């Protein structure tokens, strides 16, 4: 769970963590596991947004989104757009969310990941190639389920208190 605000995270560390998250989103997995692969980049963006908006100020979300678009070869700019939206909402809610008990915090993350996926779904539809498979929403639930783990891990590796 994310709690603290007084942190000192340098850009190099943010970039390295984001690159690791990016590679984790395309790392080869068995196909059944692939369906429940959390969106690690979205989780990373959310974590840094909840930590401090001043730290990255949406540019991190935007850059990570563009990199994800380039990695996956999808419509250029779609992840960038969805990630800055959820990063903005997370930054606005950060003071409340950081005070939430774990379960409630996870519920907020679930809602934000759902928003991210819904915007992607919407953009796909507008662009003319909708993915209507219901299983795309599995990754949202998996991402929220991973949040306590990811947040705990990032609290150790990303932020020196």
């Amino acid at each position, binding site marked *: 769970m994310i709690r603290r*605000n*007084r*942190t*000192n*995270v340098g850009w190099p560390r943010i970039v390295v963590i984001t*690159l690791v998250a*990016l*590679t984790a989103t*395309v*790392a*080869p*997995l068995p*196909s059944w596991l*692939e*369906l429940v*692969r959390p969106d690690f980049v979205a989780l990373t963006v959310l974590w840094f947004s909840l930590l*401090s*908006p*001043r*730290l*990255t*100020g*949406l*540019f991190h979300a*935007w850059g990570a*989104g*563009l*990199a994800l678009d*380039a*990695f*996956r*070869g*999808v*419509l*250029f*700019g*779609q992840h*960038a*757009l969805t990630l*800055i*939206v959820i990063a*903005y909402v997370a*930054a*606005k809610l*950060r003071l409340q969310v950081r005070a939430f008990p774990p379960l409630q915090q996870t519920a907020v993350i679930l809602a934000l990941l759902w928003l991210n996926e819904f915007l992607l779904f919407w*953009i796909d539809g507008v*662009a003319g*190639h909708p*993915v209507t*498979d219901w*299983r*795309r929403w599995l990754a949202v639930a998996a991402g929220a389920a991973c949040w306590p783990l990811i947040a705990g891990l990032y609290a150790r590796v990303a932020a020196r208190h």
Partner: protein
Amino acid sequence: MTPHEPNSRPLLLGGPALGLRLIVLALMSTGLMVADHRQHHLASIRDWLSAAAYPFQWAVQAPLAAWTSASESLATRSRIEADNVRLAADNFVLRLKLMRFDSLVQENQRLRAAGESTARVVQRTLVAEIVRVDLDPFRQRVLVSKGTRAGVFRGQAALDANGVYGQVTRAGPVSAEVILISDPEHAIPVQVNRTGARTIALGTGRSGMLSLPYLPRNADVVTGDLLVSSGLGGVYPPGYPVGKVTAVVHDPDQPLLAIEAEPLAGLDRDPEILLVWFDNAVVEPEPEPESAPAPDATPDAPTDAPGELPAGAAANTPQPAPADPPAPTPPGER
């Protein structure tokens, strides 16, 4: 971007400055999406970006590739012997098929000369390894390890040992993205081999299934029919196996048949694919550089043994020229 200290005054931030940034960045993202989707202005930038991403993508799958090659080199003697027996048997069968091949090629060329149509056959192939990264679980696309430096171009057809695999959608210098025939955005013109009826096979997003929604209810299609590429459109060489019909649904309320087919190419298990060059002069009499890369691509492209097939290797199925009237039925086949 944010030159100030991150933890100096957290409570005073996130106000209008953040909202303004959101609007500006959102507008920029939307602009990028429109430019990418509508005008394809970003093609060269996309190629450059995919080239930048390729080292990471390669690094991601490197451990798995190393493990695979290590386990292959440690394969047991009995497995190698079993493979050897199987390959020898395969080789025997293929040799039998080849015996009549030369004479059939001759005959085919004579017949085509009589009909004044050019045979469109694969002239050159290039083996490209599939980079094992998962681009998107709901889109059927793969990354391959050959790019424009090896002569790969956008729209190039890809085959595997069993049938048509897909086509190149993006070609970077050392890598290319291939869309599979089973991708929901892909459609391939096909022909029912038994009757010659032409239609279009659409991808469904599942690697084991194609859908053929455009045949009328009275069309002669049965389960087990072989679908071959018809060559219309000029992307795929004609006469290559695409799939086998697995289900034909007659719904009395619908004017069209609902047909399902299974792709013959090993879409989700191939370690490597063949990128092919063929002479599509029938479709485009004036070959332009992009669609007919063979003349300038031939000298620098690798001509070493494993990727090469002799010209004329494709002529195993007689194909009518696209200008012919539809549904020609080969005599004696029905």
